């Protein structure tokens, strides 16, 4: 680190700059004068737009992160990977059976997995991607869906996969198969829908819609609040 403790040297796409250290990769670029179009979405770690690879000078490791959630560090050399060309199957989720055949039909390449764990190491969400793929290969849709739930589809796993699998698209197929076909349905939802469709609440609703503010306020202030679930 240089003489000024509050700044660090970074290399944006390999080009050297000095920036204040209390910045993320994303805000450091903006500080320098970059106005981003690609590589910037939610700025909160939820959308996966700002997948980034970096090295720290002197270290052989290639590291990954989200630009909006990764603080800059001295000697950081980085490049954003805002788009990854991936295979995305087209399917009719309702017509599929939630089993291994659905996954293999659309993503047969999952069987090429070498279990090298590169995907897991690349995941900025710290998901056990290798376990998700193992579940997919076993046809364990429920497990693949559950383990992959926090995936933000940034694509970093796929960029590192020697078997050229697009893990995040396999994962969303698993989740949708689970949600549509395996998740147990709620009886209370169906019951309420039947009531609404039969017009059970229509009269009460029209009455409420016509009420004066004074009447509504009175009703609101005296309404009963259900306690939290024990």
């Amino acid at each position, binding site marked *: 680190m240089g003489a000024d403790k509050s700044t660090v040297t970074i290399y944006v796409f390999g080009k050297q700059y000095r920036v204040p250290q*209390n*910045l*993320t990769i994303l805000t450091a670029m903006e500080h*320098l*004068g970059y*106005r981003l*179009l690609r590589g*910037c*979405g*939610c700025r*909160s*770690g*939820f*959308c996966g*737009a700002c997948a980034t690879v970096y090295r*720290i000078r002197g270290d052989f490791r290639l590291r990954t992160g989200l630009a909006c959630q*990764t603080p800059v560090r001295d000697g950081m050399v980085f490049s954003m990977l805002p788009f990854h060309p991936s295979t995305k199957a*087209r399917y*009719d*989720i*309702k017509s599929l059976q939630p089993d291994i055949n659905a996954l293999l039909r659309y993503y047969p390449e999952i069987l090429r997995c070498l279990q090298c*764990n590169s995907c*897991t*190491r690349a995941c900025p*969400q*710290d998901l*056990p991607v290798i376990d998700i793929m193992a579940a997919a290969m076993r046809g364990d849709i429920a497990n693949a869906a559950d383990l992959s*739930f*926090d995936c933000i*589809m940034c694509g970093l796993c796929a960029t590192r996969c020697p078997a050229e699998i697009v893990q995040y698209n396999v994962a*969303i197929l698993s989740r*949708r*198969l*689970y*949600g*549509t076909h395996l*998740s*147990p*349905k*709620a*009886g*209370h*939802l*169906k019951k*309420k*829908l039947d009531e*609404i469709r039969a017009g059970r*609440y229509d009269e*009460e*609703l*029209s009455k*409420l819609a016509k009420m004066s*503010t004074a009447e*509504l*306020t009175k009703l*609101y202030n005296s*309404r*009963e609040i*259900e306690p*939290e679930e024990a």
Partner: protein
Amino acid sequence: MTSEQTKQWRTVITYSEDMRHSIDKVAANRKGRTKQSFPKLTPDEKKQLLTKYHPDYKPGTTRKLLVGPNKGEPVVNELGDIVEAYSRISPEKTDLSRTDIQTDVLIIGGGGAGASAALTAQEAGAHVLLCTKLRFGDANTMMAQGGIQAADRENDSPAIHHLDVMGGGGFTNIPNLVQTLVKDAPSIIEWLEDLGMMFDKKPDGTFVEMHGGGTSRRRMHAARDYTGAEIMRTLRDEVINRDIQVIEFSPAIELLTDADGNCVGAILLNMETNEFVFVNAKTTILATGGSGRLHCQEFPTTNHYGATGDGLALAYRAGAKLAFVDTIQYHPTGVAFPELISGQLITEKMRSMGAQLVNIDGERFVNELETRDAVASAIIRECQERNKGVRTPGGLVGVWLDTPLIDVLKGSGQTQRLAPAMVRQFKRFGIDIIKDPILVYATQHYQNGGVLIDENGRTNVPNLYVAGEAAGGIHGRNRLMGNSLLDILVFGRRAGGDAAKRSNAAPGGKPILDHVVRFHKELKKAGVSTDRHSPVLLPDYRSKEAKIELEAFAVRGWE
């Protein structure tokens, strides 16, 4: 090697000594607070709190509109600046004989409202084109964490939901929009489940449902704390599966109208190539979302990068009436530390699960499940007036959200299970929210108002629809948690269906830009500076130094 072990290199950000001192106080009285109930505000107390501390009421932050359909009505300054602005298109220089794409339904915006409108319009047989400013799914929907409301339990009903919505909005909401919202709600949950969305459930299929601020029944359906992300990626996957045409990085920069004032499409700008795309559409749905990136009163925001209120500007120029544009929702709990992610959202679900708000001395000061406007105001009061906030090393101020209480109340492991995104968000910086509280402050979150719509998303401009956060009237002056994910889908689907149906009727006339010419004349007459243009498209976060360089040499850079 586990994923954890491989990520040891991450930068750790620690609480300062002063902050740590306050955290000790919070921890010391945690046990005593566990079962403590805090009284709700009386209607009078709430009114006083809002008028005195809510940013909406700060003098000088709103003004009267000078031109357009809402002339003379109040508007938040920053929203006024985008609706009272000149087009990026010069009508005189624009060749309108050109049509690049012809479609039945044009949808502008690729968030939850746009995607649900696209699916519904296509099901109704229409040809659909969806354009979006950034990537498909780069939207506030993706970032909504806490949940989606629907009255579907035995002790609940659309009527009870209706009353909660009206009370939350200060009884200003438009009743028939609220009625539509609450009545459609359970069918939206059913629709999402059919599409394969995964909700938090009990083993028998019963939904796990919690309270939100201002709800009288537990009706918050969630998907961990990735509820919006789960909705968005599911809808996006389905839109792609159905081969609906999507054009990314191409926002609308002007609407097209015909001689009778019907909306007949839009001009898009490919932001990567600066190429214009002229779209002729029988019906057009604006689903452009909110405006957090305008940073009202210089607040930070929870919103995504493209949330610049474009739809308001476009619709207003075309003659659409706005509603409730003098109010903004500030979310009570934005990140105040670590400072480099300040303003980012901490879901209200943390409070639903039992996390309390406490000041520098570890004392509570508000019931955590008051409506957002009230909780945000109470936090502002605690920090600004009572001086009981906690300062960060960088000079921000906030109060504690006592997250460790969740595991105390709900059982060990529940925070991780029900709020993995929040745990992860802080763990990235070395903060364990299961052990330590987190520092929060109000942050700009939601555009309460927008373009006035009816229950099918129609505006007063024929063939122009609006759905989602860009619409106004549903939530009045304050929206409840979980009603935004609901409203984007209720009105997205309704607008999509109605726009498809209406596109079968006689198509509109030749596209012209008379509405822009007229609006420009009005602006000039009112003395509005010709420097002001909209839509804004993206915020400019380049440092002052970088901008000064450009200005000092009076150049526009390589472009």
